[in-house]
């Protein structure tokens, strides 16, 4: 092959049939190419039309359940108790820290900015993010304030990601910890009212704050006095509450031990159950509350016409039922009136009265007082707290229940039942939500007659002036009440134990027309001011109740009378 020939050939022009063939083939080639490119264009359109997914964000549970602010909670006077405040979570996307220089910068500048996070903490998180299988977005700090979040944003480090949330702030702190409970990180109620009123609190913010029946001043007062009582008597725990004796609105309700609203139950707390500081005793704790139940025994006796307050009794020195001896702490040595027997808290008289009334009437009465169901209090824990009393109810149970054994109720149950007795016999249902005083309330079911109610006011006043509750008297406030010192059944010890005592005092004031009901209850409180430790309620719960009443009365605008 010579190049001359090659040259000659390649210079020949395209012509004739061949030219058109070459031309057609060229067009064919161009068409195939154009179609291929068209396919690329179509594929591009297909991709562009697909739903955009947020790149890089490993949709954590927090973002998927992101909610608006939860409704605020205010007390009956409109003071804030729980607030939703906007906060931010600061995370670092470690994939965007691509060089040592950037990692240094992020660690050093964030540590400068965040008062609670050290440079080492940040470096550790960055290192963790570099490990395969770990989340690449590392949490650095939460919550941080919007101002701090803005400052972090202004650092201009792309790896910093800020997620807005609403955090719950509890203005009264520990004082309302059991009452309000808490939410989880997503703002879902987990305990207390936060959980019990989840649906209402999830309503949009336009619904306005949720108003409770609680008065923050009284709540902190009760919490404060109760805390000092627990310290003074070295008690395991305590319950204190103030209730509107007519409407059932809880003005204050505290349980001890308690927790800081920022804390969450640990494994130990969960195992501890009823001894845990997360256990809301007032709403959930079921206790044999002892002699305070004599209120119901005497009320039933009056209601059934079995006794009159002024009727004189000469009770036996000793008494036993079904082989079980019943004794009095302060044996009655001379004839007393029925009212005096109440004031002196005679177990024997209580047992005899109740045996006279009979088990069926007693059980009916207990049911009418609400001891057959949870209280209906809005806290989530109250929902499962159903009083415990046996189904096979013999004479022994009838007798012991007359002075508050063989039946376990929550302090809330007791408060509501006593309020019912004193409220002209009309049933009081406890609530934590404010009632509109102008709105018409549903009619209260009548449990006992107003006459019985008035008699009970008298005998309860007598228990304070002459009986076991003398230390609860507050000058000029006409306090009426009843003590209860109940040994608790300890399965570990195989019976009732002296030291394991719940000492309670339930009081109403002014007792001639009860407006407010106060309940104070201590678990294993001991007054060690004397030579011997004393555990009776008259020395522990009653004086604390007096302190609460004395300090609360001015706030409740109840002035002392001569």
């Amino acid at each position: 092959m010579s190049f001359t020939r090659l040259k000659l050939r390649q210079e020949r022009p395209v012509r004739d049939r061949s030219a058109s063939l070459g031309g057609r083939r060229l067009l064919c080639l161009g068409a195939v190419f154009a179609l291929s490119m068209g396919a690329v264009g179509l594929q591009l359109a297909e991709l562009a039309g697909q739903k955009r997914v947020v790149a890089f964000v490993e949709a954590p549970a927090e973002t998927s359940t992101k909610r608006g602010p939860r409704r605020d909670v205010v007390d009956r006077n409109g003071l804030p108790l729980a607030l939703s405040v906007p906060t931010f979570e600061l995370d670092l996307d470690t994939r965007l820290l691509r060089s040592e220089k950037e990692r240094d910068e992020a660690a050093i500048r964030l540590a400068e900015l965040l008062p609670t996070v050290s440079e080492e903490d940040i470096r550790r998180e960055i290192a963790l993010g570099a490990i395969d299988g770990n989340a690449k977005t590392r949490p650095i700090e939460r919550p941080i304030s919007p101002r701090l979040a803005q400052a972090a944003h202004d650092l201009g480090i792309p790896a910093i990601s800020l997620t807005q949330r609403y955090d719950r702030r509890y203005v009264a702190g520990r004082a309302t910890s059991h009452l309000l409970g808490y939410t989880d990180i997503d703002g879902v109620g987990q305990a207390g009212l936060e959980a019990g009123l989840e649906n209402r609190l999830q309503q949009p913010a336009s619904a306005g704050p949720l108003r409770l029946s609680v008065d923050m001043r009284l709540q902190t007062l009760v919490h404060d006095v109760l805390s000092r009582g627990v310290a003074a008597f070295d008690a395991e725990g305590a319950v204190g509450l103030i209730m509107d004796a007519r409407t059932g609105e809880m003005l204050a309700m505290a349980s001890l031990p308690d927790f800081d609203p920022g804390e969450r139950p640990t494994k130990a707390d969960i195992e501890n159950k009823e001894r845990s500081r997360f256990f809301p005793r007032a709403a959930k704790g079921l206790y044999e509350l002892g002699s305070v139940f004599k209120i119901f025994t005497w009320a039933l006796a009056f209601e059934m016409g079995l006794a009159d307050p002024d009727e004189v009794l000469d009770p036996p020195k000793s008494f036993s039922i079904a082989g079980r001896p019943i004794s009095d702490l302060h044996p009655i040595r001379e004839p007393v009136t029925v009212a005096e027997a109440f004031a002196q808290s005679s177990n024997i008289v209580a047992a005899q009265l109740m045996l006279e009334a009979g088990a069926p009437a007693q059980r009916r009465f207990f049911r009418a007082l609400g001891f057959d169901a949870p209280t209906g209090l809005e806290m989530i824990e109250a929902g499962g707290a159903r009083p415990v009393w046996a189904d096979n109810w013999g004479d022994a149970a009838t007798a012991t229940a007359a002075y508050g054994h063989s039946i376990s109720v929550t302090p809330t149950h007791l408060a509501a039942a006593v309020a019912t007795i004193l409220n002209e016999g009309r049933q009081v249902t406890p609530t934590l939500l404010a009632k509109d005083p102008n709105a018409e309330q549903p009619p209260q079911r009548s449990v006992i007659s107003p006459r019985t109610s008035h008699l009970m006011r008298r005998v309860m006043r007598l228990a304070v002036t002459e009986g076991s509750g003398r230390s609860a008297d507050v000058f000029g406030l006409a306090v009426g009440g009843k003590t209860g010192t109940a040994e608790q059944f300890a399965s570990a010890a195989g019976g009732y134990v002296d030291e394991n005592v719940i000492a309670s005092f339930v009081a109403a004031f002014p007792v001639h027309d009860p407006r407010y009901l106060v309940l104070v209850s201590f678990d294993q409180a001991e007054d060690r001011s004397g030579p011997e430790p004393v555990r009776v309620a008259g020395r522990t719960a009653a004086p604390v109740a007096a302190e609460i009443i004395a300090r609360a009365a001015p706030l409740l605008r109840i002035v002392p009378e001569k």
Partner: protein
Amino acid sequence: MTDLSPDAFHPRGAAGVGRVGRVGQRAYAGGGALQDEPPSEVSQWSQWARSVDHVSILICVALFCIGVVLAFAASPALAESNQTSPFYYAWRHLIFGAPAFVLLFTISFFSPSAVRRLAVFATFAGLVALALLPLYGTDFDQGGTRWYALPGLGSLQPSEFLKPALIVTCAWLLSASSGVDRGSNARDQGLGPAGAGASLALLATAAALLVIQPDYGQTALILVVWAAMYFVSGASLVTLAALALCAFVGAIIAFQVEPHIAYRVTAFWEEGGAPPQQLLDARQAMINGGWFGVGPGDGVNKLTLAEANSDFIFAVAIEEYGFALGVLLVVLFSFITLNALWRLRRVEAAFPRLAGIGLALLFGLQAFVNMAVTVQLLPAKGMTLPFISYGGSSLIGIGLTMGMLLALTRRRLLDETRRF
């Protein structure tokens, strides 16, 4: 025998020529027109300016500008991992543009015979360089000994220069046996196997050297372009079918021998197979871009996308500027190729016609393969996007390709199209 239609005398592309007079207007009419005397008074500069494919040059400049903008977006990630300043690769891309465009403009002045000489020389140089790669080359740990390391300058990939040169040389050889001037005397008219056979031998040599590297992508590219040229040159369909069968067998062998090819192909075809992370990232980037993109510099997938600044820069472009830029690029690349084919339609002489077709397809197919792989119409295959992907050798090779193509698609006197 020749095109005497009015269209041939009044080409749209030769605006302003009318002022020179009837002669000049005719002289620079589209490729196939019968001409009068060449207008000797016209300088070489204005000849070039009047005859060259202006629009394609503008598109090349535009593509390079887009490439520079994208390099600033796509390459900082690579710069970070290589511990250099963030825009190191972007600046290098810009700097390599200078020799590429110098080459492009210079060669576009060449006559077809000068193009041929350059190509033949470059083919031999390229083949030698390719042959010596196994001895002196480096693989930069990227699977394939494709580069010469040039201390201080970077690296050189001979195949990028060989590709266009080889295509032009093959076109020259094919044109010798071209069926387009088949006449009564078979011997004289060059039906003899010399041209086609020689070009096939040359092609096979180059392909073998590329497979040794191994670089199956470039091999496939030059094979397809050669087949297209052979097809246009009037090859019998039976021969073409036989060659296609050979190529198919070769592909199956490659599939069997190279596990990474098998992986890429099966990953592409199998529903629910595990595509490489690179493809997933690219897809994510394009979906994220949507119709109008997330905005300049706001792309995030580019940070994790491997080869974001070279083989997968198309995905970066779409993430930041959306479907809009993607389609614009498809249109621009298509336009260059189709416009070149359209102009070459009028070229009668076999060599410039075939060489032009080959170069236009080389350019267009390379762009097509890159974009089609990115949008996942084709199995993964590394190929640069002309003018846009980072890579000095690639950029200069494209300058060479487009320079020669522009030289061949210039409107010429009929005399020149016949003898050069």
